[in-house]
């Protein structure tokens, strides 16, 4: 197997602050990872660092064996890393359709295919991004990542604040995507059990460092360890 994404002793933050402090992670092509950790542990910062949206103080971020240090975020995105930001990153002055067509890249997931996956978006093609419900915004953020036909998909708490039925729907969709094995998926989630139930591996982040790695099935079968590592106090 070949390494798709690798973090080596990565220290990064915002301005002078250091949030990630020696983070190590390696992901093979097609692998799925649940990235867990308490609030403020640095999960979002890790994803933003892979995108190049933080300041890298030290270490390397590798993608397909190449150091990304000099690549601006848009190049990383076009190289095949897609990001679903925690706040969903809607563009208020773009319609649903424009959200997809401005970023779509050739591949099996066309804009039409994305509308097949999310029929409720298809009905709101010309609505502005900020007029959607929370669930629709989340779907649009995911659809926007899928039409890029990425090799790596970074999802930052995609279930946050959604109604239970929609959570189940998205969970099914993500499980299918992961099951197809074409994409490397990193899923950041507060609902640890949900994330563990659809991923192969798990990593736990604490104070900017990966402190525990295990197969997801093993962690889910060990409630006391899970409790110790990620339970909200």
């Amino acid at each position, binding site marked *: 197997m070949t390494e798709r994404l690798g973090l080596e002793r990565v220290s990064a933050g915002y301005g002078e602050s250091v949030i990630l402090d020696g983070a190590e992670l390696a992901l093979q092509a097609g692998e799925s990872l649940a990235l867990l950790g308490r609030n403020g542990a640095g999960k979002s910062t890790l994803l933003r660092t892979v995108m190049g949206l933080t300041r890298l103080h030290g270490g390397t971020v590798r993608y397909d064996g190449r150091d990304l240090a000099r690549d601006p*975020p848009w190049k990383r995105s076009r190289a095949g890393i897609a990001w679903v930001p925690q706040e969903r990153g809607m*563009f208020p002055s773009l319609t649903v359709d424009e959200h997809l067509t*401005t970023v779509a890249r050739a591949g099996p997931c066309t804009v039409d295919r994305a509308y097949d996956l999310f029929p409720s978006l298809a009905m709101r093609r010309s609505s502005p991004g900020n007029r959607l419900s929370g669930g629709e915004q989340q779907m649009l953020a995911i659809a926007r990542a899928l039409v890029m036909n990425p090799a790596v998909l970074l999802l930052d708490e995609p279930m946050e604040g959604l109604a239970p039925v929609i959570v189940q729907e998205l969970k099914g969709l993500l499980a299918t995507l992961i099951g197809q094995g074409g994409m490397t998926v990193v899923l950041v989630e507060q609902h640890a059990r949900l994330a563990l139930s659809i991923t192969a591996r798990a990593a736990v982040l604490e104070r900017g460092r990966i402190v525990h790695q295990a197969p997801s099935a093993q962690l889910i079968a060990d409630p006391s360890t899970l409790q110790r590592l990620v339970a909200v106090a």
Partner: protein
Amino acid sequence: MIANFIGVLFDGIAYGSLLFLISIGLSVTLGLMNFVNLAHGAFAMLGGYVCVMLMTRWGVPFLATLPIAFIATATVGAVLERTLYRRLYKASHLDQVLFSIGLTFMAIAAATYAWGPSQQPVRLPDLLRGQVEVFGLQLGTYRLFLVAVVVAITFALAWLMEKTRFGAQVRSAVDDADVANGVGINVNLIFSLMFALGTGLAGLGGALGIDVLGLDPTFPLKYMVYFLLVVAVGGAGTIRGPLVAALVLGIFDVAGKYYVPQVGAFIIYTLMVLLLIAFPAGLYGRRA
């Protein structure tokens, strides 16, 4: 009396159109890059000098100088954006003001050195001189031409921003530059292109405006307040806001100077104060 009033109104609209054409680039740099570019008028001046040089030295016809003025100032704008402006996007507004006011005085000195301190003449083609009768009113042909050009450019800009993929990318960068960058949009390139477009339009406005605004090395200072007013009152980052603001300012300025010449320029400053109190975020404030 009525005909006279309509004539003044028309002159005001022509003047306002010109202000809009020149100021739209300032609105872009403020709305997109959050940059206060006090040197914007210097690009308009450059366009004016390009036009005059081409006509007097090489005998290029006036109409043919206009696209060249656009391209020349857009190119200079793009180069300066890449080399200088970009470094100050994250700087404080005070730093930006100091930088761009310095650039303005350098432009004034350079223009004085190159072309002397006097007003430059422009000889309009016969076709655009004199008056034409429209619905029984005598209107200046050149001013009619000005309004037509600006209307056409406004529609083209609106189409570019609202209907094209490039326009959607620009809007996404205005909405959230980080996220736009993170979803594969080359925000830096968009900034450069928009800066070039804005300075190019200023250059075109400077060339078109020689007959109305005049052209000498003090141009960037003389009109700085007008351009800033258009953006402050209209709101940055939109087309509609500065358009309405420029027309209102143009009409009030021309009407004020015509009907109450003693008060002169006082009128528009009063108007500015009133509008800013009534609409602190601009007529169509983007970031409400």
